């Protein structure tokens, strides 16, 4: 079961091999991987939208969509048709080329990152030796296209949204990179496959003290990278109408929507690869383990969406620079200590360092934390 898809592809290649030349077989193998991702990407996106609407619906004590198809399963198709047939309005003063380019260009990094995700044992599209670097570099390009979209649609609200997204991405990029550094130090290689192999047999990185903090950091900054609640300022619906994609409708809006959901899937897949041991796991096949872990993380993102209000711009920045960044640096130090000492002592030492770091940062940020208040009643 574990190597199901690998054997499938292998048999196809053998079958194609006996009547096609060598180079054609290689081409077909690449094509199979590419079509697998090109199909898997949008399908996950469609069914993530449905999962989100059903999950948040149930949180709010109501059914999610259940009219189209048995439990609303055909709802994504209906949304797709709606998006295709909706009129695609371009504002008069907009810069037509940039307005058209932004949604198209934002989907490219979202799809490219799938190449690096190790879905199962030797089921990774391209085993890059710089996998994580590739992922981090691509995920920071989305900022450019969000700003291009905001600038091109010549609308004050989207301009505000675009500027917010630039500020947010810049200040969350650094803690994100720094929170992955401990794993790279321990594993010694950027390749995602190597990272997962290093976590074989239950010593997932999340079970180490520095790994826990690194996991929380990487996940939070990942949520900020994807502009989801509580960091969804670029498209703050209640403040700036719909942020950078105010002036988009029809298929262009669907592309933004697709990019957001594919990014949130890849972020959770990479987080589970780096910290939760990728396809490592007892009994079930590898690729199933990765799907379970990343869907669990996506459900946490949706759980955030159903509960938390939004940050304000300055609080968002303050949280990144004054809390996440120093914590990430201290976490690297803790990982270093963990590496330097022998087995039982290093867990203790790095745990102490991490606890100390949290303690210091908590009290350092104490002044601008909101205080609880006591209310009194009027005396007649």
């Amino acid at each position, binding site marked *: 079961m574990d190597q199901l898809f690998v054997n499938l592809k292998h048999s196809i290649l053998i079958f194609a091999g006996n009547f096609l030349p060598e180079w054609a077989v290689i081409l077909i193998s690449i094509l199979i991987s590419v079509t697998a991702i090109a199909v898997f990407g949008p399908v996950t996106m469609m069914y993530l939208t449905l999962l989100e609407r059903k999950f948040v619906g*149930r*949180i709010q*004590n*109501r059914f999610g969509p259940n009219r189209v198809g048995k439990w609303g399963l055909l709802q994504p198709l209906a949304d797709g048709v709606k998006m295709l047939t909706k009129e695609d309005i371009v504002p008069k003063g907009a810069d037509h080329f940039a307005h058209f380019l932004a949604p198209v260009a934002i989907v490219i990094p979202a799809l490219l990152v799938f190449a690096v995700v190790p879905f199962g044992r030797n089921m990774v599209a391209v085993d890059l030796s710089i996998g994580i670097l590739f992922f981090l570099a691509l995920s920071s390009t989305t900022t450019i296209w969000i700003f291009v979209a905001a600038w091109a649609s010549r609308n004050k609200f989207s301009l505000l949204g675009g500027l917010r997204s630039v500020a947010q991405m810049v200040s969350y990029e650094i803690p994100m990179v720094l929170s992955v550094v401990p794993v790279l130090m321990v594993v010694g290689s950027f390749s995602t496959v190597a990272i997962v192999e290093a976590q074989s047999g239950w010593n997932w990185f999340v079970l180490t003290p520095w790994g826990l903090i690194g996991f929380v950091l990487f996940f939070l900054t990942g949520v900020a990278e994807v502009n989801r609640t509580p960091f969804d300022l670029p498209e703050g619906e209640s403040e700036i109408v719909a942020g950078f994609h105010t002036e988009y409708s029809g298929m262009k809006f669907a592309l933004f929507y697709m990019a957001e959901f594919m990014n949130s899937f890849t972020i959770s897949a990479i987080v589970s690869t780096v910290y939760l041991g990728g396809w490592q796991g007892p009994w079930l096949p590898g690729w199933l383990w990765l799907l379970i872990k990343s869907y669990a993380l996506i459900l946490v993102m949706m759980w955030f969406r159903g*509960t*938390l209000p939004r940050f304000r711009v300055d609080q968002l920045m303050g949280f990144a620079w004054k*809390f996440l960044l120093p914590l990430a640096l201290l976490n690297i130090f803790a990982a270093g200590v963990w590496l330097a000492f022998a087995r039982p002592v290093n867990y203790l030492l790095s745990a102490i360092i991490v606890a100390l770091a949290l303690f210091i940062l908590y009290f350092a940020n104490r002044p601008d934390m909101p205080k609880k208040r006591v209310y009194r009643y009027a005396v007649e």
Partner: protein
Amino acid sequence: MFGFGVLKGMLVTIQNFFASYFSKDHLTTVQYPEERLSAKERYRNFPFLVYDQAPEDPRCVACDICAKECPPKCITIVRDSDAEGKPLKRPKSFDIDYSICMNCGICEEVCPFDAIFMDHEFELAEYGRFEDLMYHKDRLLKPNDHFKKIRPTDATRIDAKLAAKTQKPAPPVGN
């Protein structure tokens, strides 16, 4: 800054998530066309005219009080008159413009002859706003047992009152 308050809040939402599968109070959606909520007895939607035996002689005597008292002025009545032009105690035409009526129930209150009541019918979508929603007398008239079906307590009280009135001889006013 992320303290326990946020986690407590998330605990509440996840509890609601699981509660929605078990307790009825946590999943209050009614699937409208398939399941329907039963209308409460005093629910009032648009008015309708009541007739006892035949639609030709409704209880309404065209006294025009409800038309005068209606705040948005959406009732227009024309009194009927027999062959040689003597006015009769019967409306020739009784129009209520459902697109203006705000179902406030004042016509039901002020009607001295218990002729007009508020209905429970709410699926009244039409294509034309002006001609289709202007209800004429024929569409307004409904039998008394429809009134008994939707509002039993008021119906019994009014029927008793009317029955008592018919026992003692009706005042000799021309009819």
